[in-house]
């Protein structure tokens, strides 16, 4: 069975979804979903281990060898992403039961879990696929499922946010389809490895350049890269809390993966480097994203929205790493991918707990939270510190590597701006901390029954928080894998 792991990784959640529809009773459905997700994460661990030991795995679907058939291709980069996505999904689900129970009407809960599994399957499918068109299909599965998940939010604005996301997401996906089409015309193949071999011979044609442009813009729409991020803040702010935690930890990460995969894996370093001033553009946009989004975040009253803008800012850091276009830069970017997934998952989980007890995420309602929900408040503080990049947290590690990568190319101004950008994070995190710890509780006393979040939620939350600190101190695992992955992307083509 071991050789079938790549496909099992995707079909277990994919087929788990229709099965899930047949399970009755919300607790069982939740248990079933959790089980499926847990299986997926176990497989991803096994895959990572296999890839580290034996190198890239290839799996021919239907027994048809690529490029005739569709190939699944797991290299160290995909294995790393599979691990992040499936583990985050499992942890979020583990803590999510009570929150989902409260935020989603009973009649919709089973649909919710089905959509959740489909979304997970879609994301895993994107990462595992070695075929450009198959990426599009699974991208659409995960996107459609995430529109549903967001649209199930309680607030009516969730519907509007979901619709906007649907429009932007579909345009993005169609752009990707156009890009894939141009590539097919020029090369006659859809397989990524095959494409990578054939593109150099036609690389001087403008068609290939335009294909590149469409793919990158399409991915960046999905990625919510500044200035294409407009859909993200509302989608994150009004989606059910658990959905926000899951999507923030996985969906944008997969889009970043696609960016790396298409530009380095398919088009190849030489081509990517020769086109346009791509470096500068991405470094510039990344930094602009960091500053613009952080500034907006400072003025938000809704904390979920605040952290959503902060996500846009953090994506900016990853884009800078990508734009540096070096092993060190890519490594920092990939490392930040993992670390940011940890921070945002823990912060949004903490907010899920807040919503569960307070029913609100307005900044003013958080007054005195520390005294009624000490564990949740502490988790927000640690997550926030990690976001700022204080030493001993994961946020510090990735920013450290990012600054090093910038200095390596003597881009001292980039390094400086990255550090200054982090200062903005201090401002918005401090506003929350101040409100939680130092503002007098608005409700006077605690007689209104507000107390600490349910134990399941807290457990999952603190697993994430401890991971935030653990991987901030013992950096071997993520740094090691990210380094391997970055070297793999560059080594394979140079």
């Amino acid at each position: 069975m071991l050789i079938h792991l790549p496909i099992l990784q995707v079909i277990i959640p994919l087929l788990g979804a229709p099965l899930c529809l047949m399970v009755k009773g919300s607790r069982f459905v939740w248990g079933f979903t959790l089980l499926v997700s847990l299986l997926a994460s176990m497989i991803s661990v096994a895959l990572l281990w296999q890839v580290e030991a034996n190198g890239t795995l290839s799996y021919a679907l239907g027994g048809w060898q690529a490029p005739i058939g569709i190939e699944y291709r797991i290299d160290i980069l995909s294995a790393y992403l599979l691990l992040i996505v499936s583990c985050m999904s499992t942890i979020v689900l583990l803590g999510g039961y009570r929150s989902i129970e409260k935020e989603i009407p009973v009649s919709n809960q089973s649909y919710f879990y089905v959509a959740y599994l489909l979304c997970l399957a879609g994301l895993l499918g994107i990462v595992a696929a070695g075929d450009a068109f198959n990426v599009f299909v699974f991208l659409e599965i995960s996107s459609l499922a995430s529109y549903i998940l967001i649209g199930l939010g309680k607030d009516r604005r969730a519907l509007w946010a979901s619709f906007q996301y649907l429009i932007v997401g579909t345009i993005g996906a169609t752009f990707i389809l156009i890009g894939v089409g141009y590539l097919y015309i020029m090369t006659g193949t859809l397989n990524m490895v095959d494409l990578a071999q054939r593109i150099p011979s036609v690389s001087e044609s403008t068609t290939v350049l335009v294909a590149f442009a469409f793919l990158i813009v399409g991915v960046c729409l999905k990625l919510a890269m500044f200035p294409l991020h407009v859909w993200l803040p509302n989608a994150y702010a009004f989606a059910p809390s658990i959905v926000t935690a899951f999507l923030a930890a996985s969906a944008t990460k997969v889009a970043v993966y696609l960016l790396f995969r298409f530009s380095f894996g398919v088009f190849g370093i030489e081509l990517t480097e020769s086109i346009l001033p791509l470096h500068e553009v991405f470094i510039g946009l990344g930094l602009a994203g960091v500053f613009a989004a952080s500034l907006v975040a400072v003025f938000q009253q809704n904390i979920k929205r605040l952290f959503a803008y902060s996500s846009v800012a953090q994506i900016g850091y990853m884009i800078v790493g990508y734009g540096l276009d070096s092993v060190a830069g890519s490594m920092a970017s990939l490392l930040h991918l993992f670390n940011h997934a940890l921070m945002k998952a823990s912060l949004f989980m903490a907010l899920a707990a807040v919503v569960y007890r307070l029913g609100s995420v307005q900044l003013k309602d958080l007054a005195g939270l520390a005294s009624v929900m000490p564990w949740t408040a502490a988790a927000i503080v640690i997550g926030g510190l990690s976001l700022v990049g204080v030493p001993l947290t994961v946020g510090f590690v990735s920013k450290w590597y990012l600054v090093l990568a910038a200095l390596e190319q003597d881009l001292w101004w980039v390094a400086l701006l990255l550090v200054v950008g982090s200062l903005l994070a201090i401002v918005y995190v401090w506003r929350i901390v101040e409100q939680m710890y130092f503002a007098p509780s608005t409700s006077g006393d605690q007689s209104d029954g507000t107390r600490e979040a349910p134990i399941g939620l807290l457990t999952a939350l603190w697993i994430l928080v401890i991971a935030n600190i653990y991987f901030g101190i013992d950096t071997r695992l993520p740094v090691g894998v990210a380094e391997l992955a970055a070297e793999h992307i560059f080594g394979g083509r140079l």
Partner: protein
Amino acid sequence: MILDLFNYWIVVILMMVGLFIIVARGNLVKKIIGLNIFQTSVFVFYISVGKVQGGSAPILSDSIEVYSNPLPHVLILTAIVVGVATTALGLALVIRIKEAYGSVEEDELQVIDNQ
């Protein structure tokens, strides 16, 4: 030269019209229709790619020598299904938005949300 790529010119115009409707029109149903046009233009593009001069439909038969390329057809079959799935979901959202807001005009929704 121009005539060689005539189909592709049409595709470009269709795409631009579709995209224009999506961005410029505030009515949500209209946006979905625009999205449809946009997607269909991509279908036309792929299918044009698959055409081989003098070829016939890729259903094997002894009397036929040249076939058109079947691969784009397969891809577009999938893409059409994806398109209709998106349309259905989008329209369902439109209905819910109408029920929740009482309007399906983008600018009115913006106004309501800012209140």
